[in-house]
């Protein structure tokens, strides 16, 4: 078994593109985790000047990192006992954006496995805003987990 903290440590993302504060639950069926939007996130400078709103693509990224990549690391680790030599590739998503989110909001992301086969992981993921108690975004996410050596440049 790999611990939630070990999974976070294995994420390939670094500041300012690391969007997982805490993983509360990781099983082979899904994950639950949190990210709080900082007041000084780089994207608020331009989206929009004087009116900071979280870009939808960033919401999707937060959901993908917590719901898809953390789950993928866990599944791959349980299968091969080695999740170091793999990179996550985001392959598709289909989401509905329901509510905007703002600096300081705490987001809770929950994912549920649809399938993990042939190296492809597909999940249903929801993002809730705990600050406003609203469902922010939901949809299906897919990605591949591939060996580093096989990634075409």
């Amino acid at each position, binding site marked *: 078994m790999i611990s939630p903290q070990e999974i976070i440590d294995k994420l390939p993302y670094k500041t300012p593109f690391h969007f997982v504060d805490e993983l509360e639950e990781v099983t082979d069926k899904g994950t639950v985790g949190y990210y709080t939007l900082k007041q000084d996130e780089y994207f608020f400078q331009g989206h929009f000047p004087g009116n900071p709103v979280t870009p939808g693509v960033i919401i999707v990224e937060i959901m993908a990192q917590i719901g898809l990549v953390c789950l993928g690391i866990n599944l791959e680790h349980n299968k091969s006992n080695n999740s170091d030599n793999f990179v996550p590739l985001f*392959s598709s998503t289909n989401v509905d954006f329901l509510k905007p989110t703002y600096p300081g909001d705490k987001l809770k992301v929950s994912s549920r496995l649809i399938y993990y*086969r042939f*190296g492809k992981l597909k999940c249903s993921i929801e993002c809730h805003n705990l600050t406003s108690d609203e469902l922010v975004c939901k949809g299906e996410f897919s990605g591949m987990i591939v060996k580093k050596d096989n990634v075409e440049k």
Partner: protein
Amino acid sequence: MTREQIKDELKGIIGDYVPEKELLESLSEEHELIGDLKINSAHIVDIVLDIEDKYDIMIEDEAIGKMGTVGESIDIIFQKLDSK
């Protein structure tokens, strides 16, 4: 089930994932799923899952690598149906 029937059914399954639908009109067994039909390689897994559901068969990791063309995919479906 004949080869032609399977090919027609396969056409229905892969149709969802072929970006240029006109490529389906002259579909032949020689067509490569990725190279000729321009299917996103990540969708090959979805096609395989759809095939498994439709024919109630199980396709393992080794077999997916052999499904390069429409004809090869039909071969795999026949093999799995035979060994059911």
